């Protein structure tokens, strides 16, 4: 688990490497958006400033502060984590990575399979990740919640239900 990057390990005490990584990320984001802002159409600007002015100023400020953060990172005292601490911290971030992956999986499932099936499966998985075990937690609650939410939001409040790509194909 030592392969997980520092960005997921950090706690109250920020490691030097983590500060530098954060600063580099900020600088790269600023450069990306600054280059993108050069392509904004200013032909209707007229008097005053055009559509690209505000984004350009913001990205330049972000770039400047990102560079300051980088210098600050180089001046930070390094904090050495022991192998035991590092392993423990890495292991504690597994639920976080799992939940993030599950969230994107859930969105894909809703797109493919409609709401209530996706919700029942996702609820089962999230209950498992949070340490719940047993029939009540892993079967009855997921099914109950998915049916309840479907009834409230898509029937009572008449929200427009995602049709489910796979269902569309099956229905022809």
């Amino acid at each position, binding site marked *: 688990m030592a392969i997980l990057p520092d*960005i*997921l390990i*950090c706690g109250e005490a*920020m490691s030097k490497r*983590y500060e530098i990584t*954060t600063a580099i990320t*900020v600088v790269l984001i600023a450069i990306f*958006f600054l280059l*993108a*802002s050069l392509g*904004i*159409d*200013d032909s*209707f*600007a*007229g*008097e*005053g*400033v*055009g*559509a*690209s002015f*505000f*984004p350009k100023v*913001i*990205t330049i400020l*972000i770039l400047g*502060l*990102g560079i*300051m*953060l980088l210098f*600050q990172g180089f001046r930070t005292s390094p904090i050495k984590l022991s192998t035991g601490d590092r392993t423990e911290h890495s292991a*504690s*971030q597994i*639920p*976080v990575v799992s*939940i*993030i992956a599950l*969230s*994107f999986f*859930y*969105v894909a499932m*809703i*797109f493919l399979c409609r709401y209530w099936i996706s*919700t029942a499966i*996702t*609820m089962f998985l*999230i*209950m498992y*990740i*949070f*340490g*719940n075990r047993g029939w009540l937690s892993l079967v009855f*609650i997921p099914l109950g*919640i998915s049916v309840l*939410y479907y009834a409230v*939001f898509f029937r009572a*409040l008449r*929200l*427009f239900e995602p049709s489910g790509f796979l269902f569309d194909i099956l229905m022809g």
Partner: protein
Amino acid sequence: MPIIDGFITLFTTPHALLFAVLGSVMGILVGAIPGLTGSAAIAMILPATFYMPPLGALAFVYTISKSSDFGGSIPAILFNTPGTPSAAATQIDGYPLTQQGKQGKALKMAVIASAMGDCFSELLLIFGAVHIASYTEKMGPPEYFAVYCCAFIIIGSVMGKSIIKGILSTLFGLLAVTIGIDPITAASRFDFGTTQLSGGLTLVPVLLGLFVFSEVLVQAVAVLATRGKLMLAKKSDNPEDNRVTWPEFKRSLPVMCRSTGLGVFIGMMPGIGAAVACFVGYAENKRRSKTPEIWGKGAIEGVAACEAANNAVSGANLIPLLSLGVPGSTSAVLLMGVFLIHNISIGPMVFTKSGDILYGLFASGLLCIFLYFIIGYFGSGVVGRIIGYVPPRFVYPFIFITTFVASYAGRSSLFDVLTMCVFGSIGFLMKKAQFSPPAFIIAFMLGLNAESSLRQSLLMSDGGWLVFFQRPMAMVFFAIGLSVLFFRSLRAFKNKSQQNKEVRI
């Protein structure tokens, strides 16, 4: 008196009254669940406010945010775990009292102090905001741009542990809001050729991601680490230990007054918030106490100091929102969101254009204080038992699933759900890297207004930047913002030098 009309409006509008009562009760429960703040709960129900009438929606959101500030003190006192960040200092003396079997006394003092601080703050809002708003009616685009700059600088430099990261958080919020079509020239900005991004990012998914989804990720680690239920300590059989005696109340009264004053002052400053107020109130009163050695070991005045301060922030926090249109906290952002959903413009004109709704809202705030006082005084123990009975590992999966449907509900768009997931991950990384999600969201909310003010100012002055120097009120706001940044930087530099000296020793 307009507030009397407000009460009449509230009591003659059944749905508004119902939502005010429901919000008051819900807020206590929500605040009492560790990790789930009033703001997070409001973010989840924000899409539902589309379907509510304006006064009902506003009353619901406002009363939840108010009563959740008190609700956070219940687990802080009973379980040494604050329900909200604003109750973090309450546990210092609250939990030792519980360990002595005096949790009844602590809870009753907490609700008395909360109600007192909140009431004073609410009255100041009711009678003070309209006067402040009358001065701001003369403000034009240059002054508003200066106000926004001042707010961004203060919020960025005060929120969070690092000034640079706080200001970066604000700038990222401003950058995020520029995604989409320019409101003046209709030019595309940062849409990268996609239809979904050309519509821009909407508030609800960003808010849900940054505050609720990211908190689920944070709690995933915490819940698995603790695994156990919250256990209630045994209560003392002595009736004196379960009530606040008259001598204790008399001793705590000056503490509550001082904390209320501090809380109101802090509440009026954008970006500082109740979490800071409770520590400032505690520290200042401990410093002035004749018996500081008993503070931290179960001093009833310690509980009073924190709770009066953190609840006094609530009403005062709305003063910059209603008079200037600048939300100073996440709750104010959410309330502003509800105003916008119902097409009610925020700013000094709100008192004349929507006075009946506004005073109805204030009346619901006063009703909420009364309700949470009654529930808190007689029923805090019951709330504590409920919280102890429901393990957090059931609550957070439920919140996880709710964020998805809440972010979908606004526009029936899976893109919004995806946005929520992305910002949830970003929010978690921001918290880990000590950036400030509240600074981000406030800037996100105000960014387009700030840009419009800037461009209108330049159009008014035929492209001349001197317009900002020709307006005294604009110069005052710029000066305030820069002064706060200067003094905050100086303080940070002094603290750093002190730390370096200590390390060398």
